[in-house]
């Protein structure tokens, strides 16, 4: 077993295990930890595909920033001492049936398609990604920066406490001459 194959199996197992933990557990903190584990697994899969830069970005953004933001949102919004409500069986069965149906349809499409084998990963992926981002895809690159700034300002505006006037607004006294 080569290094890449071993990494593939370990990462794939981590990704699926993390996803199951992120969805199946009752405690929302455990869900977030499972989510981080799943994203570490996906980053490992990116590594086996030769996308080293992408793997690092994925860990930075998802595990480093997004999971932390989720923990903050949980702490700001949950009453942490309440017990989670029991699950309703029909909903679980319905959701599982829907997921199984989607999985079956996707598997039929994926395994039925005929893909021509390509050349495999290249060696210097980060340099080429940078060159692509700043030449052909520079518009998308700039739009993402604008989108992130707008999202950041919007998040602050939405989440901050709306300042209600304590007293009715006092108008400046009109001078009636």
């Amino acid at each position, binding site marked *: 077993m080569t290094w890449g194959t071993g990494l593939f199996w370990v990462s794939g197992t981590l990704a699926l295990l993390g996803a199951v933990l992120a969805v199946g557990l009752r405690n929302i903190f455990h869900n977030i930890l499972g989510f981080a584990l799943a994203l570490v697994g996906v980053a490992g899969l990116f590594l086996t595909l030769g*996308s080293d830069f992408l793997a690092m970005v994925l860990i930075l953004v998802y595990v480093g920033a997004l999971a932390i933001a989720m923990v903050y949102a949980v702490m700001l919004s949950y009453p942490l001492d309440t017990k989670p409500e029991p699950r309703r069986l029909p909903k679980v069965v319905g959701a599982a049936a829907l997921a*199984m149906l989607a999985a079956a349809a996707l598997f039929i499409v994926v395994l039925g398609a005929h893909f021509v084998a390509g050349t495999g990963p*290249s060696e210097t992926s980060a340099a080429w990604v940078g060159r*692509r981002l700043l030449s052909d895809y520079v518009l998308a690159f700039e739009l993402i920066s604008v989108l992130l700034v707008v999202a950041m300002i919007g998040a602050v505006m939405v989440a901050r406490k709306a300042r209600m006037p304590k007293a009715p607004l006092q108008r400046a006294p009109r001078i009636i001459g």
Partner: protein
Amino acid sequence: MMPLAGYLTISVALFCIGLYGLVQRRSLIAMLIALELMLAAASLNVVALTTLAAGAAGGGVARQIGAGHASSVGQVVALILIGVAAAEAAIALSLFVAIQRYASTINVEDLSELKG
């Protein structure tokens, strides 16, 4: 190097686990987690296909920039996906905090004011 089918299988499994969570969970944050899992599955799909498969999607690009570097296009698409997902999650989390402040819950079954 693993075959393409392995990556696609993992991607399908991740996507469907996310779909199950999105339908079944009731907390908005748990639904967001499931949605992000689905997005990660999609970007894994894009990167695996552009790296390991040549053909309709990668053919023109591969001819244009050299066969070994067609995967960089998929990586750029995945980077943009990550950026969009981060922006979306930031907005969503701030909305959850605002909803919690307004309705004292983020359980979607209690947030039914707009139901007729």
